[in-house]
């Protein structure tokens, strides 16, 4: 057993190395920050799957814009802002989604603007199409979770799977749908509907 562990960390140096495209430096950064990001997002969103999505997005974004890292004066506040913006936009999207639900439930009345109605119907159509493309077991679990509103434990019991397997299937389903609906930020609103508890 190796009892000697090494650590090297100079934040500025690390960020400079990431900015220069050094992937091992980025990996170190990922390991240093992942739990901090995740803990905050998990607390705010109350969903492990949403939290994973958001954390992944934040890290992807940091890597894609790595050249900027050399300009940061206060790294902690920079990374906080990155996480904050994603979480806030999640809340905005949930808020919008609540509204869509509202619109859908009242869609036979003509108070709501046509625009909102079309937006809501398009959203639903896109989701339905995407769900149909899932592998069958994922589809079943997904429908039980979202349409029947069952908890993971209940699904696990019903299908005689472990709750962890259910979690993994849900996570895969979300990723698949996400990949299908990748190209626009705006579709995040749909993703939320998919993964929200």
């Amino acid at each position, binding site marked *: *057993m190796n*009892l*000697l*562990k*090494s*650590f*090297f*960390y*100079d*934040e*500025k*140096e690390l960020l400079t190395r990431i900015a220069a495209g050094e*992937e091992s430096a980025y*990996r*170190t950064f*990922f*390991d*240093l920050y*992942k*739990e*901090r990001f*995740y*803990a*905050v997002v998990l*607390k*705010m969103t*109350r969903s492990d799957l949403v939290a*994973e999505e958001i*954390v*992944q997005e934040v*890290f*992807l974004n940091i*890597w*894609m814009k790595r050249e900027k890292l050399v300009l940061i004066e206060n790294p*902690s506040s920079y990374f*906080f*802002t990155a*996480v*904050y*913006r994603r*979480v*806030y*936009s999640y*809340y905005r999207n*949930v*808020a*919008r989604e*609540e*509204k869509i639900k509202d619109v859908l439930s009242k869609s036979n009345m003509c108070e709501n603007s046509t*625009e909102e109605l*079309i*937006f809501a119907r*398009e959203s639903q159509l*896109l989701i339905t199409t995407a769900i149909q493309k899932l592998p069958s077991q994922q589809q079943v679990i997904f429908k039980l979770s979202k349409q029947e509103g069952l908890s993971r434990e209940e699904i696990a019991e019903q299908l005689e799977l472990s709750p*962890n397997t259910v979690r993994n299937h849900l996570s895969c389903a979300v990723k698949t749908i996400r990949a299908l*609906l990748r*190209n*626009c*930020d*705006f579709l995040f609103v749909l993703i939320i509907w998919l993964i929200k508890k």
Partner: protein
Amino acid sequence: MDYLSVFKNAFIPIMKDRIYYLLDVYTAGQATDEEISELFQAVRDADEQNGFKEYMLELWERQKHSEDFSYVNWPEMYSEIMQNAKNQSQNKDAEYAGFGKIRSLFSTRTAAACIVIIALSAITFLLNKHSQAPALVDHPLLKIDIPSPVVNRAVLTLADGRKIQLDSTVNGTLAVQGSVQVVKQSSGQISYAGNAEGDVSYNTLSVPKGSKPMSVILADGSKVWINVGSTLTFPTAFVGHERMLQMTGEAYFEVRHNAEMPFVVIANEVNVRDLGTHFNVNSYPDEGATKVTLLEGSVKVSKGALNSRVISPGEQARVGADLTVFKDVEIDEVMAWREGKFRFGKDVDIENIMTEIGRWYNVRIVYKGTVKQHFWGAVSREVSLWQVLKVLETAGGVKFNVEGNTVTVMPAGP
């Protein structure tokens, strides 16, 4: 459209306290349906919800690192990030090359909605850029992460007993003692100039734990850097046959040589007599022996009845019950504090590391279980306590918990 409700929302913004309350119950999973819809109504109605960012910043600052997130498949997440990054850059390249993808999935209306949302987030981003993160230092929970020391808390005690807090003074002349002037320079360093009249008078510079280190230029032009948790007592001007100074803790000296008037540092009964030189003295009581490390020139080290030794550059004298000289010490390690780093070599155990961390962030260190792991490496002293601990945790074999001003050190599984 109900115009009254628009006015209501525009002119009576939801109170910050209320947002805090709603977020508290929501994140705890205890919100009622009414509270949930109130929260999201508030989020929907404002461009930037008052209190939301502050609430999250508190979570961010007080975040503990003892939660177990091992159920997340981190390696998979990492490889997905890298895969997505690759895809994104390829897409970008393809678009540059004129092969942009046709997004047939989306109607023009959707595309228009996209543009609006992107514009909105751009505006939010611009607003964010101008709003500074609010100071929340007085929140009791925030003390869990401790930033690197940013101010000098050093105190200068003059010959007449007056004490001067160096961080709160302006630059310029701090005091005139006899014909000696004490000046605080813009760099924060203080310097002494003038000639002695009559008796020697002494000043003491104390740098507490949790302060930044401090440097001083003595009346003879010698320069001393004083580490945290240390004091230096020195004459305001030098007279007689010797330049005699007394210290506790750790300090580094660059001495202006004067064969007529040797420079003598006394630390914990150890005498360091300079023969023109740069040297570091570490005499923290919690580190056992007093260590004198020579960078340039030569010094004579002695203590009471022990045989004195003259050491050469690269050598270190360790003086406890006896006096031993070590050759080829790692100067980088000894002098890391001057470079703004924590640096530890391969024979260092966790206690040594934690002692220095405790001193720098002014925290108490307690141990729960035995950490067998040894560590070596370097970390900047400019980062927060949490970041340093995280680096060590990431290296492996050790875990930390921070409560108030106490850091608990525990062994971690492999």
